């Protein structure tokens, strides 16, 4: 134990990580844990969604959870292993980049259960939760096309990975299905994980898209997306948020948010292990399972016209019924529709 404490101190000092392990620990108490990805627990987006789920679990059950925030690549495995070694019953790993580390650590600790969000690892003690981002993105694409006055809409992605291509591909299909002659400008913020945490680049990308005529911009880029929404709001244009409901960030300038219920995934993982209903394997949460969707609240109600509401509801119903098919980029690694 002493060794761990010393190792933890050293790691915290050298890496300037502020990591808290709240609550007294004993071998017998139920100890869930969560590891957030780059961007941090309060990124107002993806990680924050997972945090909300964990916080809700704490509020409902009174059981405290431990958490870590990744600030560099090497920490993924390190933190997962430390939590597993400290007898965490279930560890939620947030983000696709965790997959290789989860695979490695899950093999070493077969008794610890892992829930991986946004990635797939096939092991008997790993639950992989993925979302049908293309379906949610399709819906906000429909809204973007109808809200745009210039006929040009933008997309800013974070890191250039298949997951984000899934967003842009669904978005494009939604836009084109609504207005076949509309133009979609898309950019990625980078090809390294820092692309999730660079709002300045986000706002530069948004400005360059607005210079080219875009007046609605969908940001799927973690913290980088905040810069996009900021730039759009500053210019009097509209942004579209992602993962969590971001409508409240710039009321009147966020058309809607593509919601990914990361909170539900995190909550279910904790609760499932507590109740003994947790199952390993692969889950895909789409529109039908209400794993994805679009946000409507008092902040954007005035931006959504009845016509838009009708169009997006119709699209959602058809996707759920299976009569409208949205191509998933990941199926063929290309966006042909």
């Amino acid at each position, binding site marked *: 134990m002493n060794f761990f404490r010393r190792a933890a101190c050293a790691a915290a000092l050298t890496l300037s990580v*502020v990591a808290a392990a709240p609550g007294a620990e004993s071998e017998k108490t139920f100890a869930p844990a969560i590891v957030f990805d780059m961007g941090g*627990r*309060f990124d107002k987006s993806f990680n924050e969604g997972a945090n909300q789920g964990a916080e809700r679990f704490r509020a409902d059950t009174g059981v405290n959870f431990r958490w870590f925030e990744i600030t560099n690549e090497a920490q993924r495995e390190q933190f997962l292993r430390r939590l597993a070694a400290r007898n965490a019953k279930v560890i939620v790993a947030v983000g696709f980049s965790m997959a290789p580390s989860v695979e490695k650590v899950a093999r070493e600790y077969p008794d610890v259960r892992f829930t991986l969000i946004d990635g797939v690892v096939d092991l008997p003690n790993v639950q992989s939760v993925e979302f049908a981002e293309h379906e949610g993105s399709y819906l906000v694409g429909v809204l973007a096309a109808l809200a745009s006055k210039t006929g040009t809409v933008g997309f800013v992605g974070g890191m250039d990975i298949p997951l984000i291509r899934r967003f842009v591909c669904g978005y494009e299909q939604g836009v084109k299905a609504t207005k076949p002659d509309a133009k979609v400008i*898309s950019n*990625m913020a980078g090809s390294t994980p820092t692309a999730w945490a*660079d*709002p300045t680049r986000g706002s*530069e990308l948004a400005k*360059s898209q607005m210079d080219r005529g875009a007046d609605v911009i969908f940001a799927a880029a973690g913290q980088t997306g905040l810069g996009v929404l900021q730039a759009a709001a500053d210019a009097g244009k509209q942004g579209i948020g992602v993962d969590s409901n971001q409508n409240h960030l710039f009321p009147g300038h966020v058309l809607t948010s593509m919601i990914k219920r990361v909170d539900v995934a995190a909550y279910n993982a904790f609760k499932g292990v507590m109740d003994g209903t947790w199952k390993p394997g692969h889950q895909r949460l789409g529109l039908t399972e209400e794993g994805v969707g679009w946000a409507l609240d008092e902040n954007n109600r005035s931006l959504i016209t009845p016509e838009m509401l009708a169009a997006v509801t119709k699209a959602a119903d058809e996707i759920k019924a299976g009569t409208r098919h949205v191509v998933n980029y990941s199926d063929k690694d290309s966006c042909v529709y």
Partner: protein
Amino acid sequence: MMDSYFWLLSLLDSMLRLATPLLLAALAGFFSERAGVVDIGLEGKMLMAAFAAAATAAATGSAGLGLLAAIGASLLLALLHGFACITHRGNQVVSGVALNITAMGLTAVLGNAWFEMGGRTPNLPATARFGELTLPLAETLRGIPVLGSFYSEVVSGHNILVYLALALVPLTAWVAYRTRFGLRLRAVGENPAAVDTAGISVPALRYQAVLIAGLLCGLAGAYLSTAQGAGFQTNMTAGKGYLALAALILGKWKPVPTLLACLLFAAADALQTRLQGVVMPGLGEVPVQLIEALPYLLTVLLLAGFMGKAIPPKASGRPYVKER
């Protein structure tokens, strides 16, 4: 034709926005290094200043107070650097690196402790940031082809710090080459013994230079978090201090060439966001990775061969020891 002209204007506009923090930091480096004090700590001072500006602006709602706090924080670090390198004749590179590490850790810790948002500060409202200024006649002249749109798109519509940074280039050149202080400053970087013989205090001059560098880094930091951005994020300088040093070297420790080097780096960065997904004739779509590496490739290529030899001030990096 008009389309590509507007594309160019938008590129230049973005270039000015991106060049500003580099330019301010590079000028800071100019003063410090011309006085013989190597400043690797530009990055750390900017980061600390960016944090101080955002935290103060978030607490008080005033961008002006944020700027003052930024300058204050940066000056403190500069003083520390001076104390280590000038008073105690420590190694200047080590002290600079120490500043960078300190700033990186301290901003993250304080940010987490005060705002509990993972090291970020809250998003700043428009009133707590430096807004964009529309220069006189910008709207009237917009209609004039070529020059009018250049004026309204590129020259007008930046925040005050952008104009300040640009104005600082001739001011720096004037101070360094046309004033007594400038002459002494340059002399102390080349041959401190001669300055000492003339009866002028070497430490006093070097402290002044280091403090000017602190002031300028304060401006650069405030620009990042309260003008260009709207809040602080962990490690938001992301290597801009080092890029500024590279610009200073590329500009051979002279103000105007340094400005050009900063503009070049900024243009490469601006180009990077615009070249994505563009299909080049004969090459197909340019890979994102290649475009991302563009500013760095450019630096390496230019520094490696095209610019000729860059000779630093003779006494830079060496603490002055009076012979007894």
